[in-house]
């Protein structure tokens, strides 16, 4: 069986097709370069001296390599503190998602439920209500509950995510029923079925969940700036936005050095685990 796609080996023997195919590859290469170029530019600009970043026309490679920019970048704001906040948010959100949504999706998928349809509706309809329409009421609600300026304002609502619920439920739907029957016959309770069978089997879907939760913890800057008022509670993204992107007096090269420091960890993680991550994203499907 020949490995073919839309084009066959026979097509590629024709000259016109071959030219077209080469043009296509060239365009795909160009696309890849435009994806990678800004990343490299950020890093290299972080190494130039300030006069050089501001010179016109800009050059790609630095003339002098100023590694000391990264010292200045590291000390400009308290990066470790903000990083800790981001990781705190990520960890708490993850724990909350696994426990609350894991239990609920296990119940929806595996257990007897009265009024199943109504219960599913209660959870799933929220998926179709655009979040911007209740953005401000959501803020007011957290304020009414006295959660502003506390990490619980992230952690508790993290359990209210219908998309993750659906993701987990679909996964549990795919686990064979016999395994649970066998455990029940051996006298396992539903809780130990969940903890000792369902959770270990769902590590792949939890990993997918972790990608999404991490991405939002690492990315969100606006929402945290609304609900956190103390600077020392900001996650990394919000801090970068407030003190680096909005800063007027910060030298451009130091700015790029800070951006590089923030950008590198997720890129490195992505490149190391890309096979795994892309597969995980596929598990997440369209509804992201």
């Amino acid at each position, binding site marked *: 069986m020949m490995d*073919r*796609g*839309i084009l*066959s080996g026979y*097509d590629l023997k024709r000259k016109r*097709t071959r030219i077209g*195919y080469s043009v*296509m*590859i060239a365009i*795909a290469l160009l*696309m*890849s370069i435009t*994806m*990678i170029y*800004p990343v490299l*530019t*950020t890093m290299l600009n972080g190494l130039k001296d300030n006069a050089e970043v*501001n010179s*016109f*026309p800009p050059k790609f490679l630095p003339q002098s390599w100023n590694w000391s920019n990264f010292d200045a970048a590291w000390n400009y704001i308290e990066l470790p503190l903000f990083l800790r906040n981001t990781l705190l948010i990520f960890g708490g959100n993850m724990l909350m998602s696994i426990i609350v*949504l894991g239990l*609920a999706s296990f119940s929806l998928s595996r257990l007897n*439920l009265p009024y199943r349809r109504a219960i599913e509706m209660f959870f799933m309809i*929220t998926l*179709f*209500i*655009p979040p*911007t*329409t*209740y*953005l*401000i*009421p*959501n803020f*007011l*609600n957290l304020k009414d*509950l006295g959660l502003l300026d506390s990490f619980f304002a992230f952690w508790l*609502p993290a359990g*209210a995510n219908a998309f993750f*619920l659906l993701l987990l439920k679909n996964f549990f739907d795919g686990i064979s029923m016999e395994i649970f029957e066998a455990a029940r016959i051996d006298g396992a309770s*539903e*809780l130990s079925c969940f903890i000792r069978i369902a959770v270990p089997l769902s590590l792949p879907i939890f990993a997918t969940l972790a990608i999404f939760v991490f991405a939002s913890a*690492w*990315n969100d*800057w*606006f929402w945290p700036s609304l609900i956190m008022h103390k600077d020392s509670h900001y996650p990394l*993204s919000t801090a970068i*936005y407030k003190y*680096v992107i909005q800063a007027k007096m910060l030298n451009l090269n130091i700015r*790029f050095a800070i*951006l590089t420091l*923030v950008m590198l960890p*997720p890129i490195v993680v*992505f*490149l190391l685990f*890309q096979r795994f991550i892309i597969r995980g*994203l*596929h598990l997440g499907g*369209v*509804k992201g």
Partner: protein
Amino acid sequence: MNPLTKSTTSVPIGPQAAARRSRPQVLLRKYGWSLAFLLPAAAIFLLFLWLPIMKGFVYSFYSIDFVNGNKFTGLDNYRTVLADPDVRIAIKNTLYYMFLCLIIGFWVPIVFAIAISEIKRFQGVFRVAAYLPNVIPVVVLYGLWRWLYDPVGPINASITSLWGGEGISFLSDTSWSMISLVFMETWQQFGSAMLLYLAAVLSIPRDWYEAAEIDGAGIWQRIRHITLPSLRSLILLMLVLQIIGTSQAYQSQLALLDGGPMNATLTYALLIVKYATTRLDMGTASAMGVLMFLVLGVLAMLHFRLDRKGGDAA
């Protein structure tokens, strides 16, 4: 079960009374665990999703005051919305932004997915490259693109060196600012959509193409009559998702331009945010949210229907 047995329960007859006593126990044994497992999620959903959604409607009739307490003001907030000339601008900008996202952005991932599916060697490199901007925190991109779009930035440097002339004020020119934002977002986001399309393209059975080729179909005909029809339901779903998503956009408009220059990038959602943060009128912000909800509700229904259909097929 049926109304007859229900009416007879008022007469206490031995065996029936016994059955009634044990019924809660039976129910508990049958549903106890499942309901206990659902309880935390139900509480969280109620408290942090349904409650704010409901409060949005309530607050839209109140003047929100953190110091003196909220006051019922009837339809005042809605009157403010209708009287505000910025609202009309914001709606126009939002529609313009949605339109730009469609014509600049929507087809890009489909085209690249089909192209990359045909690349046999190093396909993984192209995938990773296309997805890379998704991994970078958006705040970094804001800083980066501000510089790329700068009047003396690299894009303008290339333009002036290739064609000469003045260069373009990508961000401060009102006719360019929204286009620049859309271009940036397309660049950043098309990779994740492309991965989905790519998976769909690669799952099309190869012998369909083989058969079409034997029947004399050319390359474009194969794409038009096999590839695109196979992607149809995915394309439709992505279209609805994109329309819903872009109608709510405000973050890059806020971060890069704060709605400027001269309100050229003031979207409806950004105006909601501005009412809440700079104009300190959260009641009106809630009212704008309710109005948006009513409009988007139609789209959401469409999404819901599509999703059901897609779910059944899969």
